[in-house]
């Protein structure tokens, strides 16, 4: 039991060395992830022939940006995942938290399926934007029910 308490307090100590609280840390990390998700959607649109008049970059560069923004977004979500799942766990006192919990349950499932589909190739064309859009939408829902709520109802600061 002491070990479990230590993990929780160690996590809080590390996070609060940068942010004012663990909740503020999650709000900002999730915001970074959603910002990178916007980059993902934008570069994916470019790969599918859209926004080429807006983003004047070569195809290899766009592919590289897409891959790295995805990796960074995934990394940003890991501390958030750890705190939400391992420390807070399930507790649904209201609609906002309920929606957040359900979306949070599925987001890594959608992410895993998306990565697998991209790597396997050979699916109908519509599958790729559909699964990518589902992942971006799930992330946006998670952000709206956590970070956006925090910034508008608690405080906008680190």
């Amino acid at each position, binding site marked *: 039991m002491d070990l*479990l*308490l230590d*993990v*929780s*307090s160690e*996590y*809080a100590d590390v996070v*609060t060395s940068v942010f004012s*609280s*663990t*909740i503020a840390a999650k709000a900002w990390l999730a915001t970074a992830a959603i910002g990178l998700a916007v980059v993902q959607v934008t570069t994916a649109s470019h790969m599918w022939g859209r926004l080429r008049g807006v983003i004047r970059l070569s195809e290899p560069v766009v592919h590289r940006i897409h891959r790295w923004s995805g990796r960074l977004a995934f990394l940003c979500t890991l501390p958030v995942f750890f*705190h*939400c*799942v*391992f*420390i*807070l*766990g*399930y*507790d649904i*006192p*209201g609609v*906002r*938290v309920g929606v957040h*919990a359900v979306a*949070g*349950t*599925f987001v*890594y*499932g*959608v*992410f*895993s*399926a*998306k990565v*697998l*589909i991209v790597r*396997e190739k*050979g*699916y109908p064309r519509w599958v790729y934007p559909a*699964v990518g859009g589902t992942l971006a939408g799930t992330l946006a829902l998670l952000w709206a029910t956590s970070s956006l709520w*925090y910034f508008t*109802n*608690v*405080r906008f600061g680190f």
Partner: protein
Amino acid sequence: MPKGTRPLIMFAGVSAAVFALALAAVFEPGRPSAAGSENVTLGDVYRGETLFQSRCASCHGQGGKGGGSGPALAGSSLTPVQVKAQIDAGGGAMPAGLVTGRDEEDVLAFVASIAAP
């Protein structure tokens, strides 16, 4: 195995794993244990309510009814000793010492007024 099955299995498996982990919440600190015979001074319940709304309600909800990231305190049966232990030591998402001194006594008075089931 038909194409498309593997991503579906992956989706279901990962989602189920996340759900199970969240149910277990293995590093959740849980409620603070009672601190024995430690004396707790209860302050001004009205001032405590104002302090609670400004410092605690973002996580514990308006009136301590929940809705944020912290547990609901209203009707929780937590004793002032337990609440004081949590405020002093922190735990989970809650940093230690959010309120101290007279402010803490006032907040304890308010929480005591709403914690009774």
